[in-house]
Each structure stands twice: as structure tokens, then as C-alpha cells.
């Protein structure tokens, strides 16, 4: 069994992310998993809101 490298969190970008890197016995990358744990659901909760609200709601998707 090789090594597992976890980068948590990945930084200096907008959003939350985690990278899991699996190395084989030789130390080469065998597999990488990139996980995005962040979900807020703007797609859903914007539904039914007055249209003039949307520019001011969706600007909160990313403030960076």
C-alpha cells in the first residue's frame, strides 16, 4: 500500500476544496481525488424570489 497525501483545504482561491493524492509504492501518483464540499444551493433558493433581488443575491455566490 502506498501513501496518501491530503491537501485540506486548498487555499488562495475562492471556495472550499480538498485534494486526496494516492501514491503507489514507487511514490508515483496512482490516483487523485478532488473534492468540493461546498454547496449552498443558489440554484434552488433563488427560485420564486423577485427578479430585482437576483443581482443582489447571486453576487453573494462569490465575493472575491
Amino acid at each position, binding site marked *: 500500500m502506498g501513501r496518501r497525501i491530503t491537501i485540506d483545504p486548498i487555499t488562495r482561491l475562492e471556495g472550499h476544496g480538498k485534494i486526496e493524492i*494516492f501514491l503507489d509504492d514507487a511514490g508515483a501518483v496512482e490516483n487523485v481525488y478532488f473534492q468540493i464540499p461546498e454547496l449552498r444551493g443558489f440554484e434552488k433558493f433563488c427560485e420564486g424570489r423577485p427578479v430585482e433581488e437576483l443581482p443582489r443575491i447571486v453576487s*453573494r455566490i462569490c*465575493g*472575491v
Partner: protein
Amino acid sequence: MAKLNLALYWASSCGGCDVAVLDVNEKILDIAAVADIVLWPVAVDGKYADIEAMEPGTIDVCLFNGAVRNSENEHIAMLLREKSKVMVAFGSCAVSGGIPALANFKERDEVLKRVFMETPSTVNPEGVLPLTRCEVPEGTLSLPEFYKYVHCLDQVVEVDYYVPGCPPTPQRIWDVVQAIVSGNLPPRGATVGATEKSLCDECKRIKQNKKVKRFYRVHEIIPDPERCLLEQGLLCMGPVTRGGCGAQCISANMPCRGCYGPLPGVIDQGAKYISSIGSIMDVQSPEEVESLLETIADPAGTFYRFGMSTALLRGANR
């Protein structure tokens, strides 16, 4: 004097609060001069593992922004709480749920379904939804659990101070930093970086006794820039919202959106607003009331725009 250890974290948020901290501009250097930043995902490197390795109390102050939407948010909140002497709920999301908490009007499963199966850009014929645990050949991967509710920070950990705003204004942030550095902090539990009076106190507009015959949506009229917006029928949240923001929206001829949260002692900003504007509606008969109410497009979404986590009625997942 030893430098302070400062952590800034974002949970379920947009990063606007972090950017607002940067908006103190060159003063950021002054912050750096007095504090070591041990965690600030948006700007500096630093891993959860480093935090976990710390002794409790290592962090002097943690400015925590963002709501608690999932188990990771909660976990980090608890972690930072353990390691921090002072925990600050920073920005509307941490204080009262903020914009992400509008999701509390919807059911959790509806959100997942919409995002992962129904949006036009999604192709997901098998209907796969994220799992908290996933077995892969290399072992187990995990994702945080997406909670039913969006919580605010003090619903999961003890909070020492609250700094409201979406985002807090740079001037107020600087005031807070100065207070922290000088140790000149108010009693625990206080809201800092905002005033004890409502926005109306800061608002320069001419106010008269209030009577409203109908409400307008912001695109329906161009309001008189001198007069109180509420008196002109715009649903300005100013009366039920703390001041301290410098009345920025008002200066742009837009009604207050309520991001600085309710006044001290008010337990439900939206309910209070209903009570207040219900009093100034200039109609008498039930029929007139009904047709006046028709002119309010989305009362709950408007009145609880930033406060759904703290709303007495909890929303759709009830």
C-alpha cells in the same frame, strides 16, 4: 508585546467578508505588524492539520465568517473554537445565516435535487447525489454532510463577539481590529462594529410621520433622494436594522436591505418589521389591506434576507 495569533476562516460564504478585510487597504500592513495570521484560506496557506496540532487557546482571535451549512463547517467551527481565546462571528452569514440561509425556505432534498439533477447544465442520468462516504479502491473518501438547515455560528459554538454586515464595512473592521489589539473589548456577547441605534439614526433623509398607501418594488419608481424611502413606499429595512454601515445603500438611493441585523433585544428582525410596517399602512378595510399587501412581492424573503438562521420560525425543513 508578543504578536497576536489571528485566524480568519470562511465557512459557507462567498469570500466577500475576507475581501472586506483586505479592503482596509494599506492598514493590512498594520495588522500584519501586530498579528501573525495562522489561518486564512483565501489569502495565506495554512492547513487544518496545523490547527489541529495547536494547544487550545493558541489562537488569540478567530474571525469566523460564513454560515454553518455542512458538517465540515461545523467541525472547523468547533476546532477553531477550541483553539481560540476569542471567537468572533464575522459578517451576516456567521451572525445570522446571511444569504446562504435563504435556503432554509427550501427543503434540503429539493436543493440537492435541483443542483445535482435538474439544472440545465447538469447531465446526471443516473441521478447520483453526493455521498458522505464513498469507497474507492484506495480506501474511503468522505464528503461533509449537507445539513437540513443553514445555521449561524452561535448555533454550533459559543461566540464571544458579533460583527454584522454583508460584508462588514472596512472602517468598522478596522475599529474592531483596533479594539482587539488594544484589548479594549466590550463585555462578551456584544455586537461590535455596529451602532446601538437603527439605520434611521444615520440616515440623512428627511423623515415625516409615516403613512404608506402602497409599496413599490425598487424598479418601479425612482425615489426622491431627499425623502425617507419607506415613506415613498420602498420596503426599506432601515428602521429594524442596526446602523454602522454608513448608510451606503441609502446613499445610492436604494432601500436598506437589513444586513446589519436587528436592534439589541429584538429577537426576530422580520417579525418586528411586520409589526412596524403593519402599523404605517394607510388603509382601513380588510380588502384595502389585502390589495396593499399584494404590492409586496416577497415579504418573507425580504424581511428575512439575512436572518433566516435566527428566525423564530425555522423554515421549510420544520
